[in-house]
């Protein structure tokens, strides 16, 4: 068996293109995940994350490209290979959980074993084990409709793991949960992965979720990969204006030294009375539009004279709406971007 793709890559996606009619939902996507690794597909709503996940699961057929999982080619447009979803051996947690309302919790969880022909006592035993791990052992006989959102999600997770798949896909696994539950679930998922050793691919539009869960991030922008790399790199280095905007930075067009954009964090925008001297940095004059209290600091929205609207966090000074200010950003806090 020849492994295609990078030497240690467990999931390989190469040149995948998917169209819906005239609309290109995925445009020539290439990335890989190492064995036991975690990757997050991150991007704003509608950028094609779910579509990518569905192509991986075999629920959608790309026009072009190559996908292999655990050394097995599951899709190859050139060779005409396209395995059915049931032959790819995955676990998937759906955005809507898709817990079947006509089955009990344990029947939901045991389903992957049932269709694999595992005997009834054996699959009951294994389903109980995994239910125990996700903390739902006491709910086995409940009807799936009698569960809360968080519990349904645990059922969906248990169902995706019960047959020990080598790759598990999570579509917005945490976005339907409240903040406290989300944090708890995030830790539990990490624990589960350490214990069971599967490779995980998370789809999310939430940067916090991606950073908390994944070691590698692929940031997507309308069907293309904008930035990819280690979570730390993608979050800290801001290589593109899209990434900078996505992570909440202020982005301005036209910048010194023939770069196309400059970007800076809200925290790094200091407000000064107009004309006050500054030593090292750029000065952007503007008018305060709004000021809102954010705990220790105030958040300002400022209309710059050059036309852009930026946001600034500043705790020291009180500027009222309508007042002229200078926004000052230190040189070393500026990101200069080509695209």
């Amino acid at each position, binding site marked *: 068996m020849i492994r295609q793709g990078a030497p240690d890559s467990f999931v390989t996606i190469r040149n995948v293109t998917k169209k819906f009619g005239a609309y290109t939902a995925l445009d020539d996507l290439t990335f890989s995940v190492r064995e036991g690794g975690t990757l997050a597909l991150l991007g704003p709503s509608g950028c094609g994350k779910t579509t990518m996940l569905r192509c991986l699961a075999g629920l959608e057929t790309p026009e072009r490209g190559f996908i292999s999982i655990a050394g097995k080619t599951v899709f190859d447009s050139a060779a005409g290979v396209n395995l059915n979803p049931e032959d790819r051996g995955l676990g998937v947690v759906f955005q*809507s959980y898709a817990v*079947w309302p006509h089955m009990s919790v344990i029947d939901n969880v045991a389903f992957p074993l049932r269709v694999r022909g595992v005997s009834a006592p054996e699959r009951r035993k294994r389903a109980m084990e995994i239910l125990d791990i996700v903390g739902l052992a006491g709910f086995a006989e409940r009807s799936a409709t009698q569960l809360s959102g968080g519990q349904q999600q645990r059922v*969906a997770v248990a169902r995706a793991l019960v047959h020990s798949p080598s790759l598990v896909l999570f579509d917005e696994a945490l976005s339907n949960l409240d903040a406290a539950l989300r944090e708890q679930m995030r830790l539990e998922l990490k624990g589960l992965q350490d214990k069971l050793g599967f490779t995980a691919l998370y789809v999310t539009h939430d940067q916090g979720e991606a950073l908390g869960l994944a070691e590698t991030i692929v940031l997507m922008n309308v069907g293309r990969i904008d930035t990819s790399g280690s979570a730390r790199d993608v979050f800290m280095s801001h290589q593109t204006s899209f990434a900078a905007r996505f992570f909440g930075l202020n982005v301005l067009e036209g910048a010194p030294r023939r770069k196309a954009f400059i970007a800076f964090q809200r925290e790094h925008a200091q407000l000064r009375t107009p004309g006050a001297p500054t030593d090292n940095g750029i000065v952007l004059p503007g008018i305060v539009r709004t000021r809102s209290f954010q705990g220790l600091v105030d958040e300002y929205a400022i209309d710059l004279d050059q036309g852009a609207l930026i946001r600034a966090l500043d705790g020291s000074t009180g500027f009222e709406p309508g007042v002229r200010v200078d926004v000052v950003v230190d040189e070393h806090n500026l990101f200069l971007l080509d695209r």
Partner: protein
Amino acid sequence: MRDTKRRLTLQVALPLVGVIIGVLLIVGPFIAGLARSLMLWVGEDPQFSLANFAWLFTDRRIHQAALNSLICGFGAMSLSLMLGTSLAWIVSRTDVPGRELFKTLNLIPFFFSPYVGAIGWIFLVAPYSGLMQTSIGSFTGESIEGPNIYSLAGVIWILSLFYTPYVYLFVISPLQRMDAAFEDAARVHGASFWTTIRLITLPLLQPGLLSAALIVFVTSAGLFDVPLALTATKGIRTMPTEVFALVRYPSDLGRAAAFGILVTVITIALTLWQRAHLSKRRYEIVSGKGYKPRVTEIRGAARVLALTVEIVFLTTSVVLPVLALILVALSPLWTGRSNPSNATLANFSYVLFDYSLTRQAILNSLFLAVTGATLGVTISGLQSYYLQRGRGRFKGLVDALLALPLGIPGIVLSLFFLIFAIRTPLYGTLAILLIAYVARFFPFATRTISAMLSAIHPELEESARANGASWTQTMRHILLPLLRPALIAAWIMLFIIFIRELGASILLYASGTETISIAMLLLSENSVGYVAALALIQLVLLLGGFTLFRLTKVSAIQ
């Protein structure tokens, strides 16, 4: 002050009138039937007796008829469940070409009359003389017997064709709205396409399938006209044709009533069981997030198969029978062969203008349909207001009671009305037909109007009241305009049902009050040309209703 009090009474009283009329229409005839079934005449004096019921349980003919009805019910139910679910799946879940058009076409048999369908099929495949046999025979030179349409199998075939749209209607909307992730989740976790259908899709459709199955079973087992057309002359009787026989040759209303009461009780028990069962498993199969209608791409053999199922269904239910009717209606004398050069409209002009029986029958049917639909929608509207807006303590009970006639066979209800009216001046008038029609079918209208009313927020009316409008003004200017699509849809539905109705008319008509379907029945022995012409005239009226229905459905969505 006194003024508001008076209006308040009207607001309570008017809907109550609708409810009381509805309850009387159901309970009245049932009590008449029950009383008659418990009576036995000894000389001049009626006596209380259970003899009629005792006879039911011992008579072989009754057992046979009941068994035959069960066979028809189960046969038609199974076939139409399979066909209706397949058709719904094909048009809602595959990319078969022309599926938007098929979505509408599949409903046409719903509006056609099974009785006319049966007549069409007799012309098509009657042993030796059917169009199929004669056209194949003209190639091979042999005379061919062909399939035996005059059999229970024939009845099941016709019933299945015409009740498939019921199943179709019940499952297409859950199929379209079901969260595709339910099936996707099964596939990615190892289930094949067919395993997913078996373990996920069908169980999720179960509430709709069960409702459809019950309706098709009860309606098929209780339908009078198709067995009458196909098997009655061969001595094979089902429950409704046996009731007919009990009333006519020789007349024994007591035994007929006992049979009718038994059927009614069984039907009610089935309906209540289904209600209880469904209320236990009410779950939502539409989850908000991540929902996308999922379309299976079908290619090659699967595509050909899907198209074949669609086309065979439409051809056998609509195209072929209508074609046969047209050929027969255009022939001066039907011999099993059509000769285009002899084609004539004589049959049409005769039944429309010259023959007093058929001319009167068409007028009667139109009168009954228009008046009946108007009366039905009126009392149903009032009932719906009571059910959705009233404050009555017995709303649940009234709701269940008003739904009862849905399953009771038309001929049984008309038997009860016959017993009720036989010694009154009502007997032999159009009025008794009208009452029986409305009594049997108003629940359909109540369902439709009630459903729409429940979707209209009461605040719309309350704000009108708060702004000084009286109840009557609020009804006129706010609620009725909002309800209009449902009222029109219910009216058209009743109109269509009444135009083709036979089971509820057969025991109540008299000379001069025949309807189109009755006239077809009376002429079916010897004047097939007239029958075909009448059938086509009826179909044109039904098709008009269907077209209106599609148009108003569109406006209801807008």
